[in-house]
């Protein structure tokens, strides 16, 4: 019996867990009622397996398509599971503000970078010229020293930005329709509010913004 994602699935309470007999090890089976525990179902027919499709043993299968559900939705951490519409509403608001915070953090880092790069240092050094003369070569450097406070602050904010961006990616990866809409709407609203007065040239070569 094969449990490919293209096979049938149970949909209790609106959630879409694809459950295979060998991966019953679930971290929060207190939320599942006993009728869901899959024992042998010899009369189930599944479609033929995808070639090369590998299942991790003992791993719970994730949703791989978009769905709208508010029951049994794990959110990033094992303690955070959404079971009721109220909890989903709260999670929606939290994810919305997280996405807004991410956009604001990006703009804030840009502002801080611009403000701290006002200082321009000139270095003059003698170099030998063509006829044995000595020329003064002047280098202009714009930047920060490594241990200066603005750079350390930028580094700390960068780490926060990377962590928040990965959290948003993982939230989107739950494939939950409500949470994905919250991410997109929060990003849009955050961009709208925080880059209102931004008047700099946008660098379109950055990929992960």
């Amino acid at each position, binding site marked *: 019996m094969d449990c490919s994602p*293209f096979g049938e699935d149970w949909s209790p309470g609106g959630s879409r867990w694809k459950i295979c007999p060998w991966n019953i090890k679930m971290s929060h089976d207190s939320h599942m009622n006993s009728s869901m525990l899959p024992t042998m179902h010899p009369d189930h027919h599944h479609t033929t397996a995808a070639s090369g*499709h590998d299942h*991790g043993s003992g791993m719970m299968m*994730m949703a791989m398509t978009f769905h709208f559900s508010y029951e049994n939705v794990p959110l990033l951490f094992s303690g955070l599971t959404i079971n009721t519409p109220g909890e989903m509403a709260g999670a929606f608001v939290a994810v919305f503000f997280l996405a807004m915070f991410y956009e604001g953090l990006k703009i804030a880092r840009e502002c801080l970078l611009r403000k701290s790069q006002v200082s321009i240092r000139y270095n003059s050094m003698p170099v030998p010229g063509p006829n044995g003369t000595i020329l003064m070569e002047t280098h202009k450097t714009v930047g920060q020293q490594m241990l200066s406070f603005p750079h350390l602050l930028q580094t700390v904010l960068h780490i926060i930005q990377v962590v928040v961006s990965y959290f948003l*990616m993982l939230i989107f*990866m739950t494939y939950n329709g409500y949470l994905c809409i919250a991410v997109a709407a929060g990003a*849009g609203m955050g961009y*709208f509010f925080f880059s209102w007065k931004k008047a700099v040239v946008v660098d379109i070569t950055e990929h992960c913004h």
Partner: protein
Amino acid sequence: MAMTFFFSDRVVLLFDFWSVHTPAGLALSVLVVALLSVLYEVVKMGKARVLRRALLAVPPSLSREALLEPDEGDGGHGATQGRWFQFHVAQTLLHVVQVVLGYALMLAVMSYNAWVFLGVLAGSTIGYFVVYPLLRVD
């Protein structure tokens, strides 16, 4: 869930109804994904273009006070503020489209189907190649 890349003509992309099980369906799906990737690059370019057009149409005040205190209420006439608002709304909409497309492409790659991944790469390459020179024209 697959955890390594594999070549296969079976994949389910993003939605339940987008279930592929034939080579022709796979080719079409890879084409769609590549076009989405091209669209992503186009939207990125579009945002830059809208910003440039906004800056040309509504030149922000370069006075020292305006730069130091960006939150100082009305920085211009009502009509100027209104035009800037329209440009900014357009940019925000483009930003939302970019975010959604970016995440959708990420989820498509997460299917770990190697053909889909190559399609995303090809679309991104073609999109960037076609669209980037347009930034220098204005």
